């Protein structure tokens, strides 16, 4: 049993505990320890990614209890990919936060690290109920982070976010209960086995449960019509938090990808491909809604928040194609959009801090102090986000477009995606030209100077777009292999045969 | 189980049930809050005490030891009932709940 698997969970947990203790220590100490934690986490996820590249499944059985009885972590390519994407994003968000954003409360770093812990559990766990627990860990931390920073702007969006997710959690439990009540198990691999054997009236129970679970994941992923909590919540969050939240909707996507390929995959008997016929049209509508929202945005951060919804729609549309190519393309897109949207949130914050009361509003304002640098970052970010060449977003979109096979689905996907891109380009160019170029005379008395941490953090996240382009070959090879692994549910099921330490058997 | 134990248990149960019921009847039908306060404070507490005792006798006569937790609960209830009554009465006086016309010496009228 490879103990590296718990590293992404234990590192932030221990780091978070330390932060709880040192809440009243000097901020420099807290920052140092927090950054060390995040760096260690990043290192561990790199190790896991390397490990996962051999296409095997690694199992970590908590308490040395054989699956399906105990809780297991399962490392495969998908898990590793999600971990790495998260850790990279988190590192830069964290770096950004030590500029000033973490000063609002003494618990910021603890909440930040616990948030990462929850995310990492979600990506690694092989147990449906433990996935619920992971969701709760990451949600409660996200609630805290969302409310971080005082002021009144975040209260109502935060309240909506929390209440809806509480209702979502209830729904999650109902779904898990329905599935357990028929299958009598919680381990995902075991569920894959048992769900395929369900017959009779039980089919309806599991079907209803599975569909409700899809709604839960759709809520997390912010799919129409469950996406309206997102724009205001994200737009009002503190910058590094909003940036970190770029991964939050992807957790929902991840869960859909995991559960509906493994448990309700192609070989799930009467329940095969459950919900997939809903996914594709809803994804396209979500994408369209996101585009409309982005076009109508009045603030940069709102625009970027809608970009999150565009991403969700795009991702699910690609996944909804149901093919390995589609999944691979979605994963490639996921990497790109997570980092870029995160970077854009940071850039928007830097912009807002240089424009006085205009903040990030898409309105005329006095000229920014670091206009050139910020405008270049914004330009690169929006090019990457809108999917224009030559940055990574284009390649991601290209993969998605290519993944469609001729037919009605392709026509819809291409149409919505391309028209969506077109409108997005208009939205970004409009926003950018107004914010950066349409200046009035005068100047803001006290604009915030750019410091090294925030410059590096925002610059790097946006710059990752170039890295993705340079490494597009290896990355797409990785996502191809990930998609292939994901669509081979039978291989996953073999984890049930993993021997325990000391030959402990069921 | 000895017959004595059985009788004891049965009697205690019935006594407990009776007082519990009487306490509740008092709560339900007495005319104002302060009069209603008497039923639960005394009768119900005693009733549950009796039921507890029957449980103690029941399990100890089966050789399962003395039910300390039952005794603990009973003692606890006897200790807390007056305090509950006290603070509820204070709250009621504070709010100025209605009393029956016959009540004399209402302190909040003064």
């Amino acid at each position, binding site marked *: 049993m490879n103990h590296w698997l718990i590293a992404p969970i234990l590192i932030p947990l221990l780091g978070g505990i330390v932060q709880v203790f040192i809440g009243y220590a000097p901020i420099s100490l807290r920052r140092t320890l927090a950054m060390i934690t995040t760096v260690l986490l990043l290192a561990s996820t790199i190790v896991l990614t390397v490990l996962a590249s051999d296409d095997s499944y690694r199992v970590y059985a908590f308490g040395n209890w054989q699956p399906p009885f105990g809780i297991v972590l399962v490392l495969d390519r998908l898990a590793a990919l999600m971990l790495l994407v998260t850790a990279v994003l988190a590192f830069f968000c964290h770096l950004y936060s030590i500029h000033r954003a973490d000063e609002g409360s003494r618990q910021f770093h603890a909440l930040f690290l616990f948030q990462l812990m929850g995310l990492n559990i979600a990506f690694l766990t092989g147990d449906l109920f433990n996935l619920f627990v992971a969701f709760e860990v990451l949600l409660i931390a996200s609630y805290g982070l969302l409310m971080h920073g005082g002021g009144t702007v975040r209260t109502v969006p935060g309240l909506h976010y929390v209440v809806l997710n509480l209702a979502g959690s209830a729904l999650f439990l109902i779904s898990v209960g329905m599935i357990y009540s028929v299958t009598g198990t919680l381990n995902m691999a075991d569920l894959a086995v048992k769900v395929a054997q369900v017959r009779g009236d039980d089919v309806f129970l599991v079907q209803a449960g599975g569909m409700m679970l899809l709604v839960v994941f759709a809520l997390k992923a912010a799919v129409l019509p469950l996406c309206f909590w997102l724009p205001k919540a994200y737009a009002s969050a503190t910058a590094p938090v909003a940036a970190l939240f770029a991964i939050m909707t992807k957790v929902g996507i991840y869960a859909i990808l995991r559960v509906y390929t493994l448990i309700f995959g192609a070989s799930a008997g009467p329940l095969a491909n459950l919900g997939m016929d809903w996914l594709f049209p809803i994804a396209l509508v979500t994408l369209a809604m996101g585009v409309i929202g982005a076009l109508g945005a009045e603030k940069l951060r709102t625009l970027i928040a809608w970009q999150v919804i565009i991403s969700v729609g795009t991702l699910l549309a690609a996944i909804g194609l149901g093919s390995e190519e589609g999944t691979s393309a979605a994963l490639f897109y996921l990497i790109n959009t997570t980092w870029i949207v995160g970077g854009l949130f940071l850039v928007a914050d830097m912009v807002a801090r240089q424009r006085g009361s205009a903040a990030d509003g898409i309105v005329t304002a006095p000229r920014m102090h670091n206009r050139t640098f910020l405008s270049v970052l914004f330009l690169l970010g929006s090019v990457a986000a809108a999917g224009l060449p030559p940055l990574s977003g284009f390649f991601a979109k290209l993969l998605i477009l290519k993944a469609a096979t001729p037919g009605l689905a392709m026509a819809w996907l291409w149409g919505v995606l391309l028209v969506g891109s077109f409108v997005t380009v*208009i939205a970004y160019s409009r926003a950018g030209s107004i914010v950066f170029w349409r200046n009035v005379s005068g100047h803001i008395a006290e604009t915030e100077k750019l410091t090294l941490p925030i410059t590096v953090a925002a610059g790097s996240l946006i710059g990752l777009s170039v890295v993705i382009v340079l490494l597009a070959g290896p990355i797409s090879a990785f996502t191809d292999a990930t998609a292939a692994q994901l669509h081979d549910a039978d291989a996953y099921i073999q984890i049930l045969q993993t021997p325990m330490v000391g030959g402990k058997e069921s | 189980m000895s017959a004595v134990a059985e009788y004891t248990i049965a009697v205690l149960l019935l006594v407990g049930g009776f007082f519990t019921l009487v306490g509740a009847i008092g709560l339900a039908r007495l005319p104002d809050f302060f009069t209603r306060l008497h039923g639960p404070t005394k009768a119900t507490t005693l009733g549950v005490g009796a039921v507890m005792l029957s449980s103690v006798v029941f399990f100890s006569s089966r050789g399962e030891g003395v039910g300390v937790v039952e005794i603990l609960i009973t003692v606890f209830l006897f200790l807390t009932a007056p305090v509950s009554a006290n603070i509820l009465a204070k709250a009621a006086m504070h709010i100025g709940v209605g009393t029956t016309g016959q009540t004399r010496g209402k302190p909040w009228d003064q």
Partner: protein
Amino acid sequence: MTLPLVVLLPFIGAMFAPLFVQAGRTAIAIAASVPALIALAALYPHWQTLADGGVLVQTYQWLPALGISFSLRLDGLSLLFALLILIIGLLIIVYARYYLKAKENVGKFYSLLLCFKGAMLGIVLSSNLLLMLIFWELTSLVSFLLISFWTHKQDARRGARMALAVTGGGGLALLAGILLIGRIVGSFELDDVLAAGDLIKAHELYPFALTLVLLGAFTKSAQFPFHFWLPHAMQAPTPVSAYLHSATMVKAGVFLMARLYPALAGTEQWFYMVSFTGMATLLLGAYVAMFKHDLKGLLAHSTVSHLGLITLLLGMGTQLAAVAALFHVINHATFKASLFMAAGIIDHETGTRDMRRINGLWRFMPHTATLAMVAASSMAGVPLLNGFLSKEMFFAESLQLNLPGIWAWLPPIVATLAGIFAVAYSARFIHDVFFNGKPVDLPIYPPHEPPRYMKIPVEILVFACIMVGVFPAISVGPLLYAAASATLGGDVPEYHLAVMHGFNLPLMMSFLAFFGGLLMYSQRKRFFDFHARFREVDEKAVFEAVISNLVSKAHRLTARIENGSLQRYAMLLVVSAMAVSLVPLVNLGIAIGDNGLSPVDWPTAVAAAVLMVCALATALMHRERFFALVLLSVVGLVVALAFVRFSAPDLAMTQLSVEVVTIVLLMLALFYMPSWTPLETTTGRRIRDIVISLAAGTGMTLITLAMLTDPFSSISDFFLENSKPGGGGTNVVNVILVDFRGFDTLGEITVLAIAALGIYSMLKNMALTPPPGDGQGHPWTRDAYPVMLRQLARPMLPLALMVSVYIFLRGHNLPGGGFIAGLITSVALILQYIASGMIWTQDRIPFRYHNVIGIGLLFATVAGAGSLAFSYPFLTSTFGYITWPVVGKFEVASAMVFDLGVYLTVIGATLLALVSIGRLSPHSAIKSKKEGA
């Protein structure tokens, strides 16, 4: 390496150009010239190969999975364009050196210009369609930045955005088209695509592919109805306009059509789409150019018109027409670039571009005037200049079209008419600017000749116009042949490049155009009056209005849907969950499983009735909030009883302890809130909500019924079997919590800890005004800490602690455990706070709750991590029985340490949360310590 070098050098130059800013404009201009010079030198050795119809392809693997390779191709066609890009680019660099003012952002300018050049070279040299598309979109992007170079000018920003929208959008269509072609051919390599022309044209996707590709080409080349962006792109600095609109940007569309000519051309669809678009553009551009008072506006519309001409030629589908198209590409590039530069000089020297004010410049700048007049004559199609030659070929081809019936007349008439307009606006350019009386109110007066070197690029281009015009075969013959050969797949028709082809119909058309044009110009007043009757449409304003309209529509739609109403969002969530499960639930119906129903005992029935009544009452009476709380307590109590009734003592205990803390919490909050909920929703809304909630309840009832009566087996037998031997405890629920699924519990206490920390930080610095009384006219009592309660509460703490220990220790084997014990301790402490107040209690608690939480989490984690030392996985428990003297045999389990962590976390978290809220209370600050003594 030649071709990658040619493409990449400009980008490298773009990166380094800004470094030369400090060294001055000349230095940076020289630096910026280097890439082009190297590129020209690098291309020179390949000339002979290409002239012979050879092709140079250099391929590098890049992203095979995407079908993208870095493969470049140099043939006659790409050479023709590459030379235009490089040479005119060089001239532009020189010109811009003098055009830009020292204080302007010269570094940015040259950097963008070089980027643009690189992107254009990428387009023309790509041998992979997707690679080409990347460069294609890159030109849109860079042109956006170039057009908006003067970012402070609103027109510049708008023009840039419009250009980006149109050309970038067209690029997206092109992307789709290319992907379709790739799907048909199975490759994006140009070699494969060009070789598969028949396959493509026969494919059912061909109409879509062609339409999409043409959309890309037409938008880029400013074809009707996408022409409108081009004139507004003139907001760019003149070197940019000269470059983008003569040799590069707009020619990309033409290049694309030429490039894909063998693959896509030759069908009816191609003919109709391309030639009619070209015709419309040709005529429209020429007509509008006539009426533009802006010097650059005239040139821009003329560009539109000439692009229409080239497109029309390509659309004709004949080989000769294609040759003519290529020829006109060269000619147009030369005369248009020089005209733009001249216009820039005039603008530069007079401070305006308004032809109504610019008059009689001949007197002030005769040299520039001469150059401009030659170039304009070429544009008009005056013999002995290059424009004449290609236009002649165009007239000839327009007569060759086999359109049915009367339609056959259409092309020559359109061509002639456009020729007339072209002569007219060229005449206007010459007459109205250089003659026509005296200048009117020039911002800079008197104008001078520009710096000497600024005119050199113009001179070179004008010289080229004349050379080609007089010696076409010698000057451009080989290049044109090579390009035609590449375009037509080696199948070059017979043609002659000569100044005169004899006295034929095309020449007649030329004459007609020439004199017609002059006549028209002489009668311009009437035409102007005629034209003035139509309202001038400012496309930029229209575009801006459309976008603004769209934006505000989008904003309104978004605001209407995303209206910030939690009630709506929650309703959507509930309804979504019901909608997706509707079909299975309808199929399920009232399903009673094989196990059937078991009998109901009446006490349970009564309890259930109480629960249901109180739950419904909570919903019905919720507006009286305190009452709702009391009812909620009853519900919680009966739920706990249900757990007892159905064999779950641990759950009952947990439920009971959690419930009281929840109720206290709710009351703490209720203190600051209205004690009544106002009636806000309409009856209709309430009825809707009742229907939704009844549906939800019915669904849950059906599900539960079906489930409970369904036979069942689970993995739990394993837990029952292994709880004692493997986990060392007989309370299986507890062993699951601390051992089998200890990881869930770790997550659970983490949630608790995070919640408390989050609450703590959220409440920091929160200002809440407490109500002065309970809302029914009673001020709060001053008696905060009743004596009886205080006296009772204090001895209860040690007793409660002992009970906690008892519950904790037995938990592994009997109902209880760390969580319940923790809540008992917490509640006992809460009682102290209630009875004796915040300050009094806090004084007696020697630790910070943060640290309790931290220690709790640490215990749980360390207990779990202990097994790592023995290379067992995290949370592997171990237990043993130890016999000590006096104490006797007792069980020691690592799970106990874990449970201790749970215990501490629960205490820390619960109290941190409650105390944080309590601290808000103004009393806790006002009341002195003696109050609680």
